[in-house]
């Protein structure tokens, strides 16, 4: 049995009067790929933002590595190896690819280690290496996603929260990104993957949760979710 890395209990989140998360509970074990599925507005991104500390939850608890991080500021959570790659990539347009990657290692003091990590990112994403001194604003959508993932790897993550990495990408690029997600997982990174593209996500994942208007309505192993045609049709749409 592997250890529980992340444990969410009865999490409630509000945006003003909007009740975005309603008593959500789930957990992620070390070494797993867990996917969080659901339609637009279900609350997937809100869940990730609550975990990484970008938004404050109203009640409930988030435990990571055995520590309660529910009220910890986002920049301190990063130092514990929990990294959130947000929806829409949020790369630093106007800055070069190298600068984006360097900022990913902001909390690191060791320049040699920074270089080692950057070489590792360039090894996984050769296309970033070719364009390393260019303004990141001119990257294609797929390349921007690679940069966002590469930037998060600069932090040396234990747990990676990925918010719709396949969004807006052509199918072959989606495959490429998913291969990289698998590779990172093999290298020891635990992954919480938010997706609308259920078929793709369930192929990689060990476990899945389906969110609907802020509640978890289905949970199970990826295999059972995959085989249950009615679930795929009803909650995830045809993709």
């Amino acid at each position: 049995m592997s250890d529980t890395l992340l444990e969410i209990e009865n999490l409630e989140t509000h945006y003003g009067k909007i009740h975005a998360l309603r008593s959500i509970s789930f957990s992620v074990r070390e070494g797993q790929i867990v996917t969080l599925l659901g339609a637009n507005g279900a609350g997937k991104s809100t869940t990730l933002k609550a975990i990484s500390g970008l938004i404050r939850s109203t009640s409930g608890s988030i435990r990571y590595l055995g520590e309660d991080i529910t009220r910890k500021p986002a920049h301190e959570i990063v130092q514990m190896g929990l990294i959130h790659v947000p929806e829409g990539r949020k790369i630093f347009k106007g800055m070069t690819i190298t600068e984006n990657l360097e900022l990913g290692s902001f909390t690191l003091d060791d320049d040699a280690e920074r270089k080692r990590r950057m070489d590792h990112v360039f090894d996984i994403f050769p296309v970033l290496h070719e364009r390393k001194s260019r303004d990141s604003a001119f990257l294609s959508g797929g390349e921007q996603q690679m940069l966002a993932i590469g930037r998060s790897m600069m932090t040396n993550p234990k747990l990676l929260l990925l918010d719709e990495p396949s969004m807006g990408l052509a199918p072959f690029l989606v495959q490429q990104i998913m291969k990289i997600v698998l590779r990172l997982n093999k290298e020891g990174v635990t992954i919480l993957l938010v997706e609308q593209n259920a078929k793709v996500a369930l192929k990689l994942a060990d476990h899945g949760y389906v969110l609907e208007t802020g509640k978890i309505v289905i949970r199970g192993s990826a295999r059972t979710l995959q085989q249950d045609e009615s679930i795929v049709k009803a909650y995830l749409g045809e993709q």
Partner: protein
Amino acid sequence: MSIQDILLQQLANGLILGSFYALVALGYTMVYGIIKLLNFAHGDLYMLGSFVGFVILSILSPYIGNSWAGILCSMVLSMIAVGLFGVLIQRIAYVPMLSAPRLSILITALAVSMVLYNGVMAFTDGQYLAFKTDLGFEGLEFGNVFITYTQMILVGASIILMIVLYLFVHKTLYGKAMRAIAIDQDACRLMGINVNKIIALTFFIGTSLAAAAGIMAGTYYGSIHFFMGFVIGLKAFTAAVIGGIGSIPGAMLGGLLLGLLESFGTQIPFIGTEWKDVFSFGILILLLVFKPTGILGKTEIERM
């Protein structure tokens, strides 16, 4: 005097004026870039910088004199003290207003400005103070034009400060974080950057550059006054807008350009010294009509 002499003389004057403008404009533009606040108190921090420098210099001068050594020491100390004061203002007056409507924080900035210059007015009875130094009047002659060492050193010092700032912002991780915060604060938090700390650092640097300019101005003009920050605040704001507000190289360029425009403007036939502000603000209006984002400003990129 030949045309060449006049041009050279105005170039020297323009560069001095322009470097003061540029140093003050830098703080304006850095703070705007990072939290979209037009810090109207910025000119008053320049004024405060020269008063604090004045006090420190009067304390130090019995020991190290009031030549360059004394000026340099009091400049550094005043930059640190006023820089920290800038951070304090940000913490007390601006941080609580960040989530309020944009207009509230602008009015807060105006209020801070009034508190500062009225405070200094009360302390000094509204009098001019003589900023005494023994720098002498030696210099070099270029044809018929005489440029003092003081003038050269002041321009040189401003250029050094600007180069150091440029290197800091482009070569260090903290400097890069500063630029990144201007692009996307949430993304910075997800990189482990303590955004509030970097914003405080930005205020510190911006304010201490204004303080440096304040002391240089005291040294150059020989007297200081509680209201000296008002006009330069407006001019520096103009310079920042000319260069493209939010852009650091833009503020340097805008400041130097405005200084040169003003000093050459006084030489245009029929436009005397008293018309120089009309001339330079006229240029500002023209520029805004034809290039609203300023020389180096970018159009805002819509966020996804």
